[in-house]
C-alpha cells in the first residue's frame, strides 16, 4: 500500500489534483481511498469527491497536524482493514504543517507502507503574497515535498510560473517540479513521476 500526502495552502488546488490522481489510479485498477481533512463543521471537498464516485473518508472540525492527529491514525487503521487499498491519498487541510502530519503517521502500526510520497501543490497566482505573509508554512510545504506541483498552469502568466518554479527549486532542489492544470491534466514529466509510484 502506498500513501500519498497532498499538501498545499488553502485554495491551491489540492482537491482538483486528487480527483485527477484518483481517477488515474482507478483507471489502472488500483484500489484507491481518499482521506480528506477539512477545517469546519461541513466538508465541501468530500461532498464533491463523493459526487464523482470516489471512496472518501473525512476528518472534520479540526486539523490533522494537531487536534486530529490521533484520529488520522485511527482512521487509517480502519480504512486499511476495511478496504485494503493500493493507494491512500490524504488531503490534510490547507493550514496543516506536513511535518506534523508525518509525525502523526509515525504512530501508524498497520500493514507496511511501501511508500509515503508527499505531493505539494503551489498556487502560482498567489505565491508572491503567500511567501510574504505565510512564509514558514509555504516553505515547509515545499521542503517536505517529494514532488512540487505548480497548479493552475493554464491561468498563470509565464512570470508567475517562473517565480513558482524558482521558489520551489530554491527550497527543495532535489524534488521534481511539474506543472498541472485541470484543463491540461498531467504533462509528461508529471505522468512519469506518478508512474514511478504506480509500479
Amino acid at each position, binding site marked *: 500500500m502506498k500513501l500519498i500526502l497532498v499538501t498545499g*495552502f*488553502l*485554495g*491551491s488546488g489540492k482537491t482538483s489534483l486528487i480527483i485527477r490522481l484518483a481517477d488515474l489510479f482507478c483507471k489502472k485498477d488500483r484500489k484507491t481511498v481518499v482521506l480528506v481533512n*477539512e*477545517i*469546519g*463543521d*461541513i466538508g*465541501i*471537498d468530500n*461532498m*464533491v469527491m463523493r*459526487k464523482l464516485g470516489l471512496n472518501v473518508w473525512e476528518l472534520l*472540525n*479540526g*486539523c490533522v497536524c*494537531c*487536534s486530529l492527529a490521533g484520529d488520522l491514525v485511527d482512521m487509517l487503521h480502519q480504512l486499511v482493514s476495511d478496504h485494503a487499498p493500493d493507494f491512500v491519498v490524504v488531503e490534510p487541510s*490547507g*493550514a496543516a*504543517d506536513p511535518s506534523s502530519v508525518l509525525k502523526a503517521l509515525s504512530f501508524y502500526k498497520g500493514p507496511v507502507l511501501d511508500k509515503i510520497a508527499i505531493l505539494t501543490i503551489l*498556487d502560482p*497566482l*498567489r505565491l508572491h*503574497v503567500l511567501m*510574504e*505573509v*505565510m*512564509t*514558514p*508554512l509555504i516553505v*515547509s510545504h515545499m521542503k517536505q515535498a517529494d514532488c512540487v506541483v505548480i497548479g493552475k498552469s493554464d491561468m498563470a502568466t509565464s512570470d508567475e510560473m517562473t517565480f513558482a518554479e524558482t521558489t520551489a527549486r530554491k527550497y527543495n532542489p532535489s524534488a521534481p517540479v511539474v506543472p498541472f492544470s485541470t484543463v491540461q491534466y498531467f504533462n509528461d514529466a508529471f505522468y512519469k513521476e506518478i508512474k514511478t509510484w504506480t509500479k
Partner: protein
Amino acid sequence: MDKMIFEPLALEQMWRRTTKDHDWVPVLLDYLSSLGSLCNERFPSSLVGHIKAMAGFSSGEFIRFSVVSPGLPVGVDGHIPKDCTSLTLTVNVLVYGISRFNLESLNAEALLQVLYRWDPAFSVTALKRLNVLNKNIYDHSNTIMFKEKHNE
C-alpha cells in the same frame, strides 16, 4: 509581527429563485465575490485563504465555487439543473485576520448587497451557522505571521 487569527465560519443557506428570468450562477458568483471583496475592503490586512461553496442536487449534479483572492475570478465547477427553483448552499469561509463575528457581519452585508441588486429574483434564508471548535486549535502561532497589525 502579529499573529493572525483564524476562525473559520461554516454556513448553510436556502436560496430560492422566484422567477426563471435569471440564471443561478451569476447571482451566486456575485455573492461570493462580494464576500471576498468585503473581507479585503474592510480588513485590508486580512488574507482570504479559501471561500468555498457547494450545492448538490438529487439528480447527482453539483456546483462548486471557489474564491481564493478578491482580485481573481471565482472558480466554478459543475452546474445547476435548469429547472432548479431552490438550492441549499453550503459555504466555508476560511479567512485569516478576521474574527468569526466580523465574518458573519460581512456575510450578512454581502447577502444584502446581492439580494438588493437582484431584487426580486432571489431570496435567501439562513439555515444554520455552524460553530467551529475553539480557536486555539487553529492557533498555528509558529507558522502564521503578519506584517502589519490587523484591523481588529
